């Protein structure tokens, strides 16, 4: 039915053309499967949830002008002014905002002993408004109240209470409740009073990005981040009033980086987004070039064999048989290509894993790309094959 043997021996007679297509398909498979995997990883990274009320939040930075100001009372005045803007649910000053790539982290251990769990924790400073402004969900224990907030402290003072993310709590105290337990910042014990569901640190690309904590201390440095939570429909209107509102409280400072959280998210993943798009373009171009290559070589091989085709037709071969011949030939070439290519794809994946922070290529990508390439190459070979089928049997009688 499929005349595999004669097609194979015909292939062996002119090896260079098919070999080139095999090589091209193999390289294409290796690149496309790996690029597809990288794209998927980036898309997953970009889709991660920060755990905060993203659609309602606005963030910005305030840099003060005079270093000797009472920053804490300034922050409270600012928060009050912000909360007075119509449409604002809550507002809070902190030291950092998720996904902004700038903030503070420190190593906190679950125990003073050697065998304790150490985690690099991104910590958010703020008063009792921070929890509601971020829109976090309490899992157990309680959130900070006004009484918990350390008001009079020196630079370098350590907190005595902390709220942990579920991620951190589960790593510190696997299988048990963290509430009421102690964690240690250097030698100082800190009591865990509550656990919230999720809050991402400023560093989206870092491992343990969900290892975060809230501490009941207000930001006393001349440089602070602010978060404003507005009713979703009011967010843009609120955004427009923020700068004027704060400069009215005190004009001697700079408000910068005023953005909705959607914009913050977009900036955070700009490189990943660009990488995904560029790889997407590479994949598309590669498929186009490969398809053109298949068309070119199949056309050539049809052209070379016009006479034989005519002869076969004259001897009674149907048009379908001719088409089948070329498609089978293409399929054989293509299978050799994807076989070689899957080895290449795994080798490339291994190389990327060794040299860069990439995970192993899941076989799913290999399979999908293989099937896709087979379909593409059959489609590309179809047009020349159909053209071959139209060759008239009379051709066989000419110029012999």
């Amino acid at each position, binding site marked *: 039915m499929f005349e595999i043997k004669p097609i194979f021996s015909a292939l062996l007679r002119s090896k260079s053309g098919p070999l*080139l297509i095999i090589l091209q398909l193999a390289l294409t498979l290796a690149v496309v499967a790996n690029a597809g995997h990288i794209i998927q990883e980036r898309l997953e990274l970009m889709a991660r949830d920060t755990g905060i009320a993203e659609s309602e939040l606005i963030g910005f930075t305030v840099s003060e*002008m005079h*270093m000797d100001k009472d920053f804490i009372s300034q922050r409270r005045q600012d928060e009050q002014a912000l909360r007075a803007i119509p449409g604002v649910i809550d507002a809070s000053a902190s030291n950092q905002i998720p996904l902004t790539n700038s903030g503070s982290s420190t190593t906190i251990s679950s125990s003073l002993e050697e065998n304790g769990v150490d985690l690099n924790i991104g910590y958010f400073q703020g008063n009792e408004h921070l929890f509601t402004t971020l829109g976090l969900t309490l899992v157990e224990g309680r959130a900070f109240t006004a009484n918990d907030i350390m008001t009079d402290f020196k630079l370098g003072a350590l907190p005595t209470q902390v709220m942990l993310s579920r991620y951190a709590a589960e790593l510190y105290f696997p299988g048990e409740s963290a509430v009421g337990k102690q964690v240690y910042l250097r030698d100082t014990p800190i009591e865990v009073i509550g656990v919230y569901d999720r809050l991402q640190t400023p560093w989206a690309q870092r491992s343990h990005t969900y290892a975060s904590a809230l501490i009941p201390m207000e930001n006393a440095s001349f*440089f602070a981040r602010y978060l404003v939570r507005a009713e979703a429909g009011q967010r843009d209107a609120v955004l427009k009033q923020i700068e004027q509102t704060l400069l009215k409280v005190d004009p001697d*400072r*700079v408000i910068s980086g005023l953005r909705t959280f959607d914009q913050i998210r977009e900036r955070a993943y700009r490189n990943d987004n660009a990488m995904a798009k560029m790889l997407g373009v*590479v994949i598309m171009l590669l498929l186009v*070039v490969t398809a053109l290559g298949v068309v070119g070589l199949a056309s050539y091989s049809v052209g070379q064999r016009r006479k034989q085709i005519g002869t076969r037709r004259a001897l009674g071969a149907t048009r379908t048989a001719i088409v089948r011949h070329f498609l089978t030939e293409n399929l054989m070439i293509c299978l050799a290509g994807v076989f070689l290519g899957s080895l290449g794809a795994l080798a490339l994946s291994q190389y990327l894993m060794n040299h860069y922070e990439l995970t192993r290529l899941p076989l799913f990508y290999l399979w999908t790309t293989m099937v896709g390439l087979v379909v593409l190459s059959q489609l590309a070979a179809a047009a020349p094959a159909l053209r071959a089928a139209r060759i008239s049997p009379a051709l066989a009688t000419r110029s012999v």
Partner: protein
Amino acid sequence: MLAYYLKLAWLSLKQSPVISALMVLAIAIGIGTAGTSLTVHYTMSHNPMAHKDDNLYALQLKSHGDGHDTDKDDGLYYQITYQDAVNLSQQDGPVRQSPMIRTGFTVKPAKADAYPFIADGRAATRDFFPMFDVNFLHGTAWSVEQDELASPVTVISQSLNDKLFGGGNNVGKTIDANGKSYTVVGIVEDYRPQPLFYDVNNGAFHMHEEMFIPFSLLPVHEVEAWGNTNGWKQEEINSYADRLTSEQYWIQYWVELEGTEHKATYLQQLAAYVEQQQTLGRFPSESAIASLRSVSQWLEYNEVVSEDNRILLALSFLFLLVCLVNMVGLLLAKFLRRANHAGIRRALGASQGQILAQHMMEVMVIGVLGGLLGSLFSLLGLAGLRQLYPGYDQLARMDFTILMALITLSTIAALLAGLFPAWRIGRTNPATYLKSQ
């Protein structure tokens, strides 16, 4: 002879326009992709101080104890402590040297109704300017005395000068920054080396600095560092003064030496310093060392070229390879279709070499055309990149060197691709084709 081959090549290309166009297109797409990532890579890995690579060195000291994992393979941190910075800057040895930190200022314009704004800044010694080839438009760097006396003076950039004063020579005027008054002693051209090699603390492609102040002002004005601080030891730090005497790493240190011999001498001097500090009870590690890295080594060490860029570069060259394999196939098809021409020429006395040369010429024409079109595609690709990365304005620019490199690359690639088909056709046995005429 060559001109004749060129003519033949052109005729042959015109004879089969579709397949020729496909080949030019294939190589152009390959060159376009490779060119785009190559341009970004070239700019990222550009060394703005290549001419001083034997002179400028970033200094590192291992003043921490063992058992601290740093990001770097050699276990060093990329900054040094304030006390080491001060100690070293009091020693002679280098031609020039400067401890430095990145900082920022809230600058208030003199006009009453204007709001303050942020200016990026740097605290360094006066050596910073000649060391890194910063050009002065007006005035000079502050003096040695001003460095020693921690004078509230500043050198500002042209852009800050324009913003504050509307341009012109404003040496002698004062600026209100972070609530303190600084006297302008010099105005420099905007200094924005790409990458910003001397401080890759927060990425190597951030904004250029607009206000420079003497490093000696740190303890006086309690200047905040706008960069990372790395601690390794339990220390109680409750004030700026605590920070200055701490073992925290937060100062960058650069030296200018006369060359590699001078570097060896200075390394000995640094080793002596390490020993001296050990007798004072610091530098607890037995493998405490000092390290000097040239600008090129520094860029490499800090992995200034992003991982994404390397991956893209590798993949785009694989892509170019696919385009070339594709081209070999198309060339083979094209050449063999015209094998009878070659057969006749051979029968008329052309040597195998001449047939080869004729076809290589044709391939070269395809390569050059592909290179030109490919450069155009690269320009499109770079324009696209600038859309994706607003920060890439400086980065994704093509210059003449890259353009020439792309056309050369394209031509060489095409010639390589053409080698096998042209050889095949040159080997043609004239008799085969004469028979069927």
